[in-house]
């Protein structure tokens, strides 16, 4: 993505690791598997990594906590409980706390998964658009054409901003699918880089900044909508883009 051979080698190197670690989604996993199968050097590298992973797992199983340490830790948190005999009330409270904690953690874990799978769904959309004939369903640099095009296709039209003077010309828009709901995506350019901006009418957790498979991802919340900006543009310029996009008109 960086354009240089070194950059490409590095990023495909990371993808091989991510593939063997089960961190890629199906689409990217299939793509990297095909490259491993067709490139002997890559296949060898993958075999080495896999062998290392296996030998480490086999040689270092999780050890139980040594008894002397277990006793020390128990003393720590039970310090003032030595003279204490549990009442039914206290035991019930402890059970309730545990239940509350376990249900909270389930909820948060699920939410975490959802939020990262949202990002990977959107990244899929972005990747599809890069390999498609054109990155947009409606190709226009005129925001007065793009905004009405979304009417009737998605629940809420996104904010369409003209940023061409800042060097981010509008290319058009398309519909992506997020959690089985159609959501609007705007496409901007920066030199030869494509930036996808998706707005979804749901409030995800706080802002994130991430780099996934060589793409930079920014997410923020504004006006009750969640926004994602995805691009292989460098992080600094993507941040600059997001800042301009978010500025009030």
């Amino acid at each position: 993505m960086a354009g240089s051979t070194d950059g490409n080698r590095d990023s495909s190197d990371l993808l091989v690791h991510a593939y063997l670690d089960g961190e890629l989604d199906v689409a990217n996993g299939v793509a990297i598997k095909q490259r491993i199968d067709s490139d002997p050097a890559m296949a060898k590298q993958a075999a080495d990594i896999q062998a290392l992973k296996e030998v480490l797992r086999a040689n270092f199983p999780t050890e139980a906590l040594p008894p002397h340490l277990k006793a020390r830790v128990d003393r720590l948190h039970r310090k003032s409980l030595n003279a204490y005999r549990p009442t039914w009330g206290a035991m019930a409270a402890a059970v309730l706390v545990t239940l509350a904690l376990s249900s909270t953690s389930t909820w948060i874990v699920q939410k975490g998964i959802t939020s990262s799978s949202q990002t990977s769904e959107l990244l899929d959309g972005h990747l599809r658009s890069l390999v498609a004939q054109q990155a947009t369903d409606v190709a226009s640099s005129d925001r007065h054409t793009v905004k009405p095009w979304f009417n009737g296709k998605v629940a809420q039209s996104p904010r369409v901003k003209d940023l061409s003077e800042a060097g981010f010309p509008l290319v058009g828009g398309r519909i992506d699918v997020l959690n089985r709901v159609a959501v609007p995506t705007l496409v901007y350019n920066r030199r030869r880089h494509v930036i996808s901006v998706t707005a979804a009418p749901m409030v995800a957790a706080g802002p994130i900044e991430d780099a996934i498979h060589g793409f930079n991802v920014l997410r923020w919340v504004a006006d009750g909508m969640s926004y994602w900006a995805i691009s292989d543009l460098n992080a600094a310029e993507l941040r600059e883009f997001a800042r301009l996009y978010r500025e009030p008109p």
Partner: protein
Amino acid sequence: MQLDQNAKSARFIALVQPYLADAYTLARWLTRNRDDADEVLQEACIRALAAIEQQTGANARAWLLAIIRNTAYTWLSAKKRLRLVGLDDLSERDLARVEEGGAQDAPIVDPEAELIARANAKQLERLISELPMEFREALVLRDIQGLGYHEIAEVTGVPVGTVMSRLSRARRRVIYSLKEADA
């Protein structure tokens, strides 16, 4: 909300206890010494207990491992057993040298996979212990403790992309050293 000792103890049992073995494993790898690991674990438990009211239950394992990591770093720097130069403090050139280590002239490692599969625990332990702290923790958290990239990012406080590059470099160095040892 001020929790009394019983409630704190109940939370400790629910949130910390299930991950103590994981916590101890990480402490051992970071300190490279069982006595130090004992101290780090105990100190980390005190910190966890003090912070237990703020802990919501979201990914308690990553939370505890992050406490272990911070405690270990503090412990080691206090003991001056490790020159704690953060990779972020190094110049580009030094960074490249640290990261490449012995593998500098061999960017594409290419030993037979069987050679790696034959490595024994002692040999692996030594090679992992020799890795710079940042690489070691990435490798241990992923390949020995089985955490996902996002969890490792949470524990070590760096972006996922950084986790990925540290992990790949750590593995590359171990693979390269195994090959060297055999040559």
